[in-house]
């Protein structure tokens, strides 16, 4: 019986290796059998279970060995079948008068095999070989085994083309259609090695998939890029004949453009359209990192340091550090500098350290951002010491609670505000400072979320120490993954996804858990309403600030008119700071209640 099962399993797996999706069901049957046998036999003897499962393992191993032995033959058969299927489709299309597009090397070699020219132009293999593989050809798709598309075995002369076709690469130029290559040592690749080198399946990834709708930020980036090119074309003197004034930013797909001749008009529109088609709204820092090809964040920073003072493309010296205050428009920003959407003037670029600090007291588009962080920082710094010393509730609470609240308040109210203010103040010095200070700002936000979640988690799972430990480990793990994503400057999707999951888990889980237990009438049913109200208010304010920042309201409706005052980033700072201050009242309320209600 066992031998019969083994043979059946081997046969099934041998068949399943050609159809991987069906192989999943083979797993299903296998595991079902094993578990059923385990349950039935455990009553009698555990040794039976071991023997049975060992048999299954031996069967699997045998299948693996068999697979290895027959791997090459199997792959060759599979690819020959697929090739014949494709060639059959192409020949059928020609028979019915359909013009086959010759846009890829795969198509070209296929047509060469069939001695068919598309009739449109002489076949340009070199051009075709660099063309992308059409999406229809990226995935292997097999037709029925007995389909009429199957062709007779190919001639010996076609072996090279077929091998190249199968391997998806070309070692030597392949002649055009009608002039099939002779079999030469240089072009002959052994079918086995070619098949081994052949990708089993092409990914559906396409650069065009990254192309998203063009937003305002991209348009600004485009305008800056065009301006920089013009500037270089004019010898770097910045005397571009016709510039886009801040009020005439390309509003709708390049409503006003800058051409090579520096004139607005249709040529400008073409330039804008062309540039728009190749630009993708990806994060500037990530893009620079990827282009640099270095291993990690600090290598990237070092590379930037080495490049300091040099222009990327032209190699000419970069603009020297300014020692006199002079604000720039967004058109004059360097490539690495991402401007705020709808804010066109008041940017500081290449400032010296001294000038950066002096610019705190001058009006530009970061002045309010700086002071909306520094003023709360100074006030909270003083208040924190006062509160921790004189607040009767905090003084009466346990040492662990006091420490948790003090650290939480420090990170939430002081550390984040300080880092954010410094980033707004000092990022304008250089490319390196830009990357480092915004990274520090991002990390300080993550630390703020972590500290807040640990305190709220402590209060939520106050009487459940095991869950509290697990929650803290989980939050710290997500925090580290978010930091790693930033430090190693991974893709924007990974960074954003990691951050969102971190915030959702860190803030959402304690809140939902607390609400659920209260509604369900669990252990924390008498949690004071005031505590939940402060918490809700905190979340609402931060969410409101996030919404305002994400939608760029109100400057969206007054582009270029709220550059210094009233921009969304300033409102974001106010909302976040206000929300964070409320955490103090929430924690104070909880400690007051907990002091009277032990676990």
């Amino acid at each position, binding site marked *: 019986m066992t031998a019969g099962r083994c043979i059946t399993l081997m046969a099934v797996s041998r068949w399943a*290796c050609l159809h991987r999706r069906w192989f999943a069901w083979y797993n299903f049957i296998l595991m079902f059998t094993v578990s059923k046998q385990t349950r039935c036999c455990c009553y009698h003897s555990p040794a039976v279970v071991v023997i049975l499962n060992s048999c*299954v*393992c031996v069967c699997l191993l045998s299948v*693996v060995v068999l697979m290895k032995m027959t791997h090459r033959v199997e792959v060759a058969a599979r690819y020959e079948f697929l090739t014949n299927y494709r060639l059959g489709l192409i020949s059928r299309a020609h028979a019915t008068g359909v013009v086959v597009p010759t846009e890829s090397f795969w198509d070209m070699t296929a047509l060469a095999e069939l001695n068919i020219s598309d009739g449109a132009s002489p076949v340009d293999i070199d051009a075709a070989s660099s063309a992308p593989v059409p999406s229809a050809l990226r995935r292997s798709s097999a037709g029925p085994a007995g389909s009429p598309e199957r062709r007779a075995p190919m001639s010996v002369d076609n072996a090279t083309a077929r091998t190249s076709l199968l391997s998806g690469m070309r070692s030597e130029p392949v002649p055009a259609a009608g002039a099939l290559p002779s079999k030469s040592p240089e072009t002959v690749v052994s079918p086995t090695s070619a098949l081994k080198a052949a990708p089993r399946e092409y990914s559906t990834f396409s650069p065009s998939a990254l192309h998203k709708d063009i937003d305002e930020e991209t348009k600004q980036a485009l305008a800056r890029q065009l301006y920089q090119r013009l500037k270089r074309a004019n010898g770097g003197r910045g005397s571009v004949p016709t510039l886009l004034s801040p009020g005439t930013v390309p509003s709708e797909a390049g409503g006003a453009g800058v051409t090579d001749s520096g004139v607005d008009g249709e040529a400008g529109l073409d330039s804008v359209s062309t540039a728009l088609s190749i630009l993708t709204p990806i994060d500037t820092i990530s893009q620079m990192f990827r282009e640099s090809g270095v291993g990690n964040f600090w290598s990237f920073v070092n590379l930037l340091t080495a490049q300091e003072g040099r222009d990327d493309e032209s190699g000419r010296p970069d603009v020297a550090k300014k020692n006199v205050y002079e604000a720039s428009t967004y058109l004059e920003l360097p490539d690495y500098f991402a401007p705020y959407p709808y804010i066109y003037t008041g940017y500081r670029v290449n400032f010296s350290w001294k000038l950066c600090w002096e610019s705190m007291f001058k009006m530009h588009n970061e002045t309010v951002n700086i002071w909306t962080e520094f003023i709360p920082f100074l006030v909270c710094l003083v208040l924190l010491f006062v509160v921790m010393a004189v607040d009767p509730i905090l003084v009466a609470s346990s040492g662990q609670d006091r420490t948790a609240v003090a650290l939480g308040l420090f990170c939430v109210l002081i550390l984040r505000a300080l880092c954010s203010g410094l980033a707004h103040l000092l990022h304008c010095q250089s490319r390196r400072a830009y990357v480092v200070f915004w990274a520090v700002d991002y990390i300080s936000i993550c630390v703020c979320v972590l500290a807040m979640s640990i305190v709220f988690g402590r209060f939520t799972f106050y009487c459940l120490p095991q869950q509290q430990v697990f929650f803290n480990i989980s939050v710290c793990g997500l925090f580290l993954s978010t930091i790693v994503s930033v430090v190693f400057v991974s893709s924007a999707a990974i960074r954003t996804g990691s951050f969102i*999951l971190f915030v959702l888990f860190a803030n959402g889980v304690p809140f939902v858990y607390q609400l659920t237990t209260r509604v369900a009438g669990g252990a924390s049913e008498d949690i004071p309403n005031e505590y939940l109200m402060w918490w809700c208010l905190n979340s609402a304010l931060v969410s409101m600030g996030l919404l305002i920042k994400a939608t760029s309201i109100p400057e969206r409706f007054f582009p270029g008119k709220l550059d210094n005052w009233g921009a969304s980033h300033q409102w974001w700072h106010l909302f976040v700071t206000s929300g964070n201050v409320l955490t103090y009242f929430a924690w104070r309320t909880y400690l007051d209640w907990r002091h009277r209600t032990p676990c």
Partner: protein
Amino acid sequence: MKRSFVHTASRLQVRGQTIRKGLLWVAFFYMLYSIIEWGDQHFFWHLVVARAVYIVLLLGGFALSFVFEDHFHRHISFYTTLMLSFTGMDIIVEGALQRQLYSPFLVIILIMYLVAGPILVRTRFVHTTAVCWASICTFDFFSLIIGPSGDQNIPAGQKWWYVCIPE
């Protein structure tokens, strides 16, 4: 050769990002599951340790994939298999700690997981086999240690209920 390299590189890049996203999502949902369903009180600290180790493995794998980027891309199938094996083992270990080793629910979860592996992750045959093997061996090991004499049906009212407690 260059074209083939580019295709392979882009494919690996995409697969690398997919694996990383998968690690993050699995870790996130596992955390949610752990918080919602805390299990048997008798093995509380054991559960904390087991679940924390699994979380650390998942997120550690995520972090290390950035630190050793090239190595990760070259051996992506191997590390996928490793993570799948750990997940299978974790399912069984959690079942054992909660005294649910012979539960039909555990078997169903295990089977669903093993079926989902080849479909979603598209692991190769050899790697799928390794995962199955690791799961089966772990299951056998805990069967021998915890319930060598089988499971137990306990009557409840007028019916027989399967409570999956090893004798």
